[in-house]
């Protein structure tokens, strides 16, 4: 494929898909190890009431109020999950289940009770996103990457998700040591002065930011898949956290690129007429990678069986 065709039509969706996948996979490593992986699922559901409320307040579909609404709803959800978990003294999974279904239901009710039927707020869009539509029509080829006029026409999702990825990466780099220690041994972390409660909350907020930005660009299917699949697959490739992070990024990139390409061309190769959803295919690829590592990964046996030593 030539640059004239690739740059305007495929480069931006590929980059957005890849950045979204990495931004979710990075915090996903810690969420999976903390047995909080469902938080991605929860966040992608609770953003609905946030978006609806933002729409009701502003009366228009515009990005920033909706992202703020989604982020606000995520924070409310995280606080409520913690509150239910502590006050009810129940396990985190159950607390998440209670909070996110309730908030999602509230969002649906709000949507029904108010006059949003005229605007484009639908479940399908929320699930699959619209990766294929994030094209860069101002581009004419690779040279457009250095052309300020063409760059001005970039889909706004791209700089937004790139910034999100930067924020997520910075957080992980800066708090790597306390994150690792408190994930492994929370009690010990507290004795050396790590504020584990605040750190755990910050991790979930970072995950929420990644989820909301990715949700905006590519829909919730990718969010849910990317929080869990690349980190879980990476865990089966290595017994070191540092290496696990690297593998999870590799798997996120491979899922995003192969999923996008397969969605666009796979059906044609098979003789079908239409392309399939890129978001759906990316999530499917990440699931396939997870299945492969579960079967062939070198570190898939659960430890705990003491060695002969």
């Amino acid at each position: 494929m030539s640059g004239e065709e690739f740059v305007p039509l495929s480069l931006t969706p590929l980059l957005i898909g890849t950045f979204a996948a990495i931004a979710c996979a990075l915090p996903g490593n810690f969420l999976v190890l903390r047995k909080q992986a469902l938080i991605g699922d929860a966040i992608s559901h609770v953003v609905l009431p946030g978006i609806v409320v933002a729409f009701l307040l502003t009366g228009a579909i515009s990005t920033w109020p909706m992202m703020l609404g989604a982020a606000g709803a995520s924070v409310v959800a995280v606080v409520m999950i913690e509150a239910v978990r502590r006050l009810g003294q129940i396990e985190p999974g159950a607390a998440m289940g209670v909070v996110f279904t309730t908030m999602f239901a509230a969002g649906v009710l709000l949507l029904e009770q108010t006059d949003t039927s005229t605007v484009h707020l639908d479940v399908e869009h929320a699930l699959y996103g619209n990766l294929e539509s994030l094209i860069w029509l101002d581009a004419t080829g690779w040279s457009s990457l250095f052309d300020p006029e063409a760059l001005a026409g970039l889909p706004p999702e791209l700089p937004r998700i790139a910034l999100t990825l930067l924020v997520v990466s910075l957080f992980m780099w800066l708090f790597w040591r306390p994150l690792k220690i408190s994930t492994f041994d929370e009690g010990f972390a507290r004795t050396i002065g790590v504020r584990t409660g605040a750190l755990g909350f910050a991790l979930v907020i970072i995950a929420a930011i990644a989820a909301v930005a990715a949700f905006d660009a590519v829909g919730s299917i990718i969010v849910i898949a990317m929080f869990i699949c690349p980190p879980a697959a990476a865990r089966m490739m290595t017994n070191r956290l540092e290496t696990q992070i690297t593998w999870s990024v590799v798997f996120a990139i491979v899922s995003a690129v192969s999923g996008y390409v397969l969605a666009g061309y796979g059906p044609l190769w098979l003789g079908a007429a239409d392309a399939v959803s890129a978001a759906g295919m990316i999530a499917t690829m990440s699931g396939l990678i997870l299945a492969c590592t579960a079967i062939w990964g070198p570190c898939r046996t659960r430890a705990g069986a003491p060695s002969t030593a």
Partner: protein
Amino acid sequence: MLELAANQGVSVAEIGIESSPLAIRGLTVSYGQKPAVFSVDMTVEPGAMTAIIGPNGAGKSTLLKAALGIVSPLSGQVSVFGEPLEKQRARIAYVPQRASVDWDFPTRVIDVVLMGLSRELGLLGRVRARHMSRAMDCLNRVGMRDFADRQIGQLSGGQQQRVFLARALAQDADLYLLDEPFAGVDAATEKAIIAVLKSLKEAGKTVVAVHHDLATVTDYFDHVFLINTRKVAEGPVAEAFTAETLQSAYGGRLATAQIDQISRALG
């Protein structure tokens, strides 16, 4: 120094709060309706090895965790070397219960020991050769040098406990708090751990351990702290670890035969 529940209210502790490595006053901790630890005073003897003893669910681990700020007490004060806990964190090393962490965590033995150096390393400090050699020394002291590159899940229970102890050694503290260090470990590990703890004591450090094996108390420790939600007794083993205090701490849960045996052992 012996205090019995019956004559509580009169503080007869000889060492003041200022000079004690760990002094607790009026500590109450509750997880629900019922307090796990109620109005406990404790004054740890400097340079001694103290065993915290009591029946299951008596609040031994909770007392330790509250002293370390891991759980928040309802009331009470903790002072470490005469100052608030936050100011003296660098002088405390903690060995949690082995079962409290997920040993499937993707990390190696040496990485766990290096966690003991994290106050020194700070957020972004690089692990340098001298940190590495200190961590290896600590592994050597617990006889685990050859396991440095193993994934922690591949270790036996006793080996895991020794790695935790090595991490505490890397903290290079003055006060060592251990939660059930001998629980479910093999005999060789128990010997290795007690040898390390005694060497700490010889170096002038203070050691406090939650302990469950009454038969080894007199061999391993010189002070005891008996607790059953409330403090039962505190002091040197010869004074505070008696048939009377044990009966008081354990109630009917300790067979008379066991108490007789301990009394005989104590002479």
